[in-house]
């Protein structure tokens, strides 16, 4: 898996969203959001776009690949 840094937690907390709430918004399980924030899961393009829209931030600001 390509190494990347994930700023999702920061953007999620800016909107006062819990992991569970964000998971419901993008139709995934809470564990998936947890793994994403830990940089342990490389999401599909669709999920990345859904997350980007949900936290109102550009994809390249949320997921930073080396």
């Amino acid at each position, binding site marked *: 898996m390509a190494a990347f840094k994930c700023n999702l937690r920061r953007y999620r907390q800016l909107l006062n969203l819990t992991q569970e709430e964000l998971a419901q918004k993008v*139709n*995934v*399980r809470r*564990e*998936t959001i947890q793994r994403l924030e830990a940089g*342990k899961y490389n999401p*599909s393009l669709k999920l990345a776009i859904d997350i980007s829209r949900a936290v109102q931030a550009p994809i390249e600001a949320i997921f930073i690949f080396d």
Partner: protein
Amino acid sequence: MGRRLREALSRAEWYGLLGFLGLLGFTKSYSGEPQYVFFSFFSFFSWFFVGYMQRETPDERLVQSHQRADSSTLKFFSLVLAALFAFVILNDNALHIRYVSMKAVELIVSCVFAFSVFLRSFLVYYYDRVE
């Protein structure tokens, strides 16, 4: 059965208890024949690993975990087939076993079936929750 255990297990995970039927494989029939086919019931233990998924809506990561587990289980099958192939070649050249008991075949097939079902479920759990 304790209340805590009842709460911990969902309805699907209770199927896992059917795995104990596999112990019947150690018993013998009325005619004294071993009943190895019952070992395949050990595969029900896999419900302890995948039962929790019945409570969750699958997402892309769960699908990916299933695909990875399938791939790893296929590797296991490939190893079993390679071992079988090696046995056949060895048997022709060195072992010269002319008679293989049907019960031995039953034992191997039951155990491989139970182990592969269990392995797949364990790997799904491992990729999804542990790794």
